[in-house]
């Protein structure tokens, strides 16, 4: 069996009396999509933040490609190969689609410290950026200002920027949020192919997408992982049914 590309080991995080992350261990194997689901307030965002570097856990480790990145900043983790998309789009709204993608390409190539030639005239950056846009179907929109994109197109651009980094692992926070049925279906197909390139840790509310895509699913409730397994295992897990259906009943 191969080693996980990305692993969180025994993460703990409290805010005052609230235990937002309770001894969570999660790993991501090569070629897989590992989905994290859970009711609202289960601590999914807090967990993602700790994995990506926005929050320091109180204890526990984060490993990327076997290397301990727990103390690393967000940008160091990105450089080590973590590609992230956000639940709420984090894009430069005044810039064009191409400029947003070029920014990603710059990060990947570590070429932000060039002061003379225009970024958009550098063929290396442009090729990386355009091919990522091509893959998500945004190449035609490359001259559009981000603020003028539709919600769905912004989600696509989020993914494209992550692609420009050619990461070892993706962490995607609700990429389907707010997409219509068509958009969800297209993105589902895209992620399905993408996993061969780099595995995806996927936080998602869209259960159709989760069960269609995920090789494994972890269920997070009150900051704890209560179950991990395949779609069928999760569907039939009594604790999970209790957590979801019990709350709704």
């Amino acid at each position, binding site marked *: 069996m191969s080693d996980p590309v990305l692993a969180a080991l025994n993460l703990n995080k409290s805010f005052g009396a609230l235990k937002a992350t309770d001894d969570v261990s999660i790993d991501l194997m090569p070629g897989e999509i590992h989905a994290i689901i859970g009711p609202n307030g289960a601590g999914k965002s807090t967990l993602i933040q700790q994995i990506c570097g926005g929050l320091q856990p109180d204890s526990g480790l984060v490993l990327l490609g076997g290397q301990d990145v727990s103390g690393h900043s967000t940008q160091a983790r990105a*450089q080590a190969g973590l590609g992230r998309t956000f639940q709420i789009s984090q894009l430069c709204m005044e810039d064009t689609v191409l400029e947003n993608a070029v920014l990603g390409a*710059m990060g990947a190539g570590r070429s*932000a410290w060039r002061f003379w030639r225009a970024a958009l005239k550098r063929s290396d950056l442009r090729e990386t950026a355009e091919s990522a846009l091509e893959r998500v179907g945004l190449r035609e929109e490359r001259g559009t200002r981000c603020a003028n994109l539709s919600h769905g197109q912004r989600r696509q651009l989020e993914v494209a920027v992550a692609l420009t980094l050619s990461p070892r692992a993706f962490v995607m926070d609700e990429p389907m949020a707010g997409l219509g049925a068509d958009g969800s279906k297209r993105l589902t197909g895209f992620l399905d192919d993408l996993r061969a390139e780099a595995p995806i840790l996927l936080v998602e509310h869209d259960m159709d997408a989760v069960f269609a895509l995920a090789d494994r699913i972890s269920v997070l409730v009150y900051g704890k992982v209560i179950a991990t397994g395949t779609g069928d295992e999760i569907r039939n897990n009594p604790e999970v049914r209790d957590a979801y259906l019990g709350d709704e009943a």
Partner: protein
Amino acid sequence: MRLDERYINGLMIAGLLALPLWALVADQPFTITLMTRAVILALAAVGLNIVLGIGGMVSFGHAAFFGIGGYAMGILAYHAQTYTALDLGAFTTEGTKFMPVIWLVAMITSGLAASFIGLLSLRTSGVYFIMITLAFGQMFFYFAISWAQYGGEDGLSIYVRNDFPGLNTLMPIQFYGICFALLCLVLALFARLQASPFGLALNATRQAAVRVETVGLNPMRLKLLAFVLSGAITGLAGALFADLNRFVSPTMFSWQLSGELIVLIVIGGVGRLMGPVIGACVYVALEHFLGEITDFWHVYLGVILLCIVLFGRGGLIGLLTGKEGAHV
């Protein structure tokens, strides 16, 4: 009316070339001096525009760099004109009246000050950043006042304008030429910088700092370098300003000046190449013409400014091109 920004920029440069030449022919040296003042203020504001317009950092302390540039000129020229030694610890010098050296010293010292202020104040953001830069600006102001060796509150007078090889800097038009050439040089630099990968990344830190981190770039370092570059350019402008007046005093460090530099940019258009230039020309013109009508022209400036903030975004360039300026 929707104009292409490039036409406005071209017109502006043409105007800055033609008007002084007209003033020369019409024998209006005061107009040339006014325009020199506008060009130097524009240069200072172009420096500030790097951090404010591209990087979104509202620095309310850029007078510090303007003043340091001014004092760099004042101190070097003072020692040269009094034939006294300037003891710098490691070595002594007799000062200099040679402009290029003065400019270099002005840029290095103000750049160093900017790296010191930047390192401390960039640990914070938002309102903290505004207050801290304002406070550090004031620190230099009080330091200059209590620096008795170089005139304290009274400042330093330099009797003869400094030298530039091949030119007679005492002729207003020739000194204007020097300032204008430097402005063009810095504008070219600004344009390249804004389009460069560094500029794109810096611009992104203003709009979505989280995004910049997530693609593996360090926003703090980007901002710090921008701050240092910006400080150095404003310092250069300070040296020229002191040379224009042949006088430096603590007022070059005043907080009002920091505010005015921001105002210049906002009048013209935040983050626009020529925003500071247009702003400076309008400002100097207002100061001159309103100042002739009333001693209280700042009241009118205040009202105009309030209207710009409350009702208009994007400054004059925004008005002419129909595009909003950078959001800071």
